[in-house]
């Protein structure tokens, strides 16, 4: 169980990247969602013990990892958003190096993990010649070396092709059955099928933390579909939150977030998770 209690991270007096965030995370996949600059990466860096909160506590199984970071490091797997590999090192040597740093003694584990991420045939190839997708898979294998209880992965699907993205999703879902997997992204489709809970961040604050079903439930009755002509579309754009617009000949097919019917002929629609999140964001903006 990971607990964040009133965690704040400020850079100087001007910038507060994470503000008074409180959260309890049991095992399972948690999707950390927010737009760029929402504070996701800063939060993950604090969980990964790379930086310390300005105030607040982070507890892992009851141990304060801000005061004693070693309490989590041996049980942590971390893959940052941007990472690389050493030059002139094969994938196998890269794994051996990190295995030694993590105190992993079983050489068979390296082989198993390379198989898991489908890189076993490339083990003796220079890692610096890998494609972006292969590199990210190698990074995942590295993060899993010590069989971590908590896996923190920041934007893991960036640069992956659809097939690799699907494989990664399945792998994380499988891991999430037993462990805590914290996965940050701003691509909702990456988490909607695997995350048990979604933590939504905005401007450093946690604005919601719930199951995808609950978030969808809250958005039901607020997403509308309509078909309008171009002139009406311009008017609607100014007065409502248009989620999607698709030109169909002379008319425009719209999906709109609004508490009541936005125009004549508008029909209530079942929201997608992305639409539900957008509707929630707009509702929050209006409430503010």
């Amino acid at each position, binding site marked *: 169980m990971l607990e964040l209690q009133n965690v704040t991270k400020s850079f100087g007096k001007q910038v507060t990247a994470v503000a008074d965030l409180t959260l309890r995370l049991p095992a399972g996949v948690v999707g950390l969602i927010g737009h760029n600059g929402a504070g996701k990466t800063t939060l993950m*860096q604090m969980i*990964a*013990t*790379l*930086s*310390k909160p300005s105030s607040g506590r982070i507890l892992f199984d009851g141990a304060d990892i801000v005061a004693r*970071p*070693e309490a989590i*490091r*041996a049980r*942590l797997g*971390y*893959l*940052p958003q*941007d*990472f*690389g*590999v*050493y*030059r*002139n*090192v094969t994938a196998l*040597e890269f794994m*051996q*190096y*990190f*295995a*030694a*740093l*993590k*105190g*992993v*003694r079983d*050489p068979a584990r390296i082989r198993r993990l390379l198989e898991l991420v489908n890189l076993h045939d490339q083990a003796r190839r*220079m890692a*610096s*010649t890998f494609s972006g997708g292969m590199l990210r898979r190698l*990074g995942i294998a*590295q*993060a899993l070396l010590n069989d971590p209880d908590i896996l923190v992965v920041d934007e893991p699907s960036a640069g992956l092709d659809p097939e690799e993205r699907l494989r990664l999703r399945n792998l994380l879902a499988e891991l999430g059955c037993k462990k805590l997997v914290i996965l940050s992204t701003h691509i909702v489709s990456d988490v909607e099928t695997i995350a048990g809970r979604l933590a939504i961040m905005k401007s450093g604050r946690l604005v919601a933390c719930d199951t995808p079903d609950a978030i969808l439930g809250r958005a039901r009755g607020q997403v509308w579909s309509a078909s309008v002509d171009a002139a009406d579309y311009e008017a609607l754009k100014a007065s409502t939150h248009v989620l999607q617009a698709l030109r169909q000949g002379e008319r425009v097919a719209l999906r709109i977030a609004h508490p009541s019917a936005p125009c004549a002929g508008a029909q209530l629609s079942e929201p997608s998770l992305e639409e539900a999140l957008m509707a929630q964001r707009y509702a929050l903006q209006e409430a503010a």
Partner: protein
Amino acid sequence: MNWHMRWHTIRTLALLDARVRLRRTSTLVTLLAVVALSWLMIGNPADGVTLLSIQEARVRYTSAALALGSASMATLLFAIAGFYLLRGRMAEDQRSGLGGVIGASAAGGRPFVLARWCGGMLYLLALIGVFMLTVLACHLVRGEGPIQPLVYLGTYLVVLLPMALFTASCATLCDSWPPLMGKGGDLLYFLGWMGQLSMMAAIKNGALTSAIPVDFMGMSAIIAALGAHFDIRDSMQLGMGGFDAALAPLTLPVWMWSAQTIAIRTFTALLACLPLWLALVLFHRFSPDRMKPASTRTRRSPLALLNGWLRPLARLAQPLFALAARLPGVAGQVMADVALTLSTAPSSIAVLLAAQVMALALDARQLPPLILACVAFWGVLVSDLSTRDADAGCGAMAAALPGGAARRYWRQLAAVFLLGLMFTGVAALRLAGTAPLRALALLSGLFALAAFATMLGRTSGSARTFLALFLFGLYMAVQLDTVAMADVVGFHGAATPLSMLAWAGMGLAAAWAGHVRERWDRAS
């Protein structure tokens, strides 16, 4: 693009480049080293040391003497340190992904290279300017005549300008032509620098006079200027040294430079720009065909080519990885760093093996040169050990491991020291039997160098800060064979227990400074 636009582009890029370089921590570190060095080399005659002596007689600290003496030291330092500080900007562009953006932009390749060269020159001139200000401050304290700024400026222009042009041109060429990018270019330049020093010795002895126009460091001009006024054939000492206090001090003329010397130096300055011309012609423009994949690029550089050929030797590092996995805690992590260092540079495994064989086979009297060669290789090898995580983009991953960033710093220091022991250990053990003091000096020196390598890498974020100072220090150490403090690793046998303690103390201070910086970074 018309000329006005080109000039505007070059000016903007050059100023930006100079600003980027000046903001680096490595610049601050180098400036501090330059300030310390300039005060150290202008010894206080009251203490029995002087910057310049001829036939054992001290030369008065007039503007001409201090300008000449300091320029001769500055040319040695900036020719090597300047190169390592200047180069690497295009590799940064490539790493950050901006290389592709620049390559696809409307900026012409030649104006871009020219702007980089101008930025480098501005930076180098700024460093030289700070050096000159420090010497002027020293003149205020120890000088024996009025400060004549024009004498300083004129001397620096004659001696240092061709050197600065050559250094900036070579750095630009090594950044612009893929075969010279990486350590291959570093090594080649260092060999060239050593060649210039050898040439200087030959010119002083009256040989190789036809090579004077390619003496970019300007030592031939200094020798010619002094030779025109004094008999310097038998005894002349530049740089800190002793003198005979019984002899009357000499005074240099205010202006030392003949029209012929100025003409030759002007020609040398033109020749110094030849590498820049090559850079303009050979610029890669961040073309993926020439710079990617990394394996293709690195195999073209001589050192990378050698490492490519010796790649099978990397398997010899496998047992070290296995050992690292078995060793508990920090010991295992240190061994992992050692294993990674050797496997990424298989040539180091070949050198390591050869060093062991030679250390066993050579006569004890031949061990010091072997130790010198091993220390030189080791210094180059480990210069990037504390920066490689950040260079490779593995910094965050490695900092989240057991021990975190703080332990990483100490384990990297331990790995650098352990590698030093691996290269020199057998020779040191043999030396311990016959010259235990030398063996102890080697230990304290290796520790101090390891601490400086790790601290400078950590604080400046660049391997080249240590590399430049290490190579310059190595040269000074080889030259000053009777100075105890210069005998850092004991290959002259001049080190004393006091000098060893001093180096060990400086090593500890450097190690602690790096640790404080590490903590500061984490807290902020």
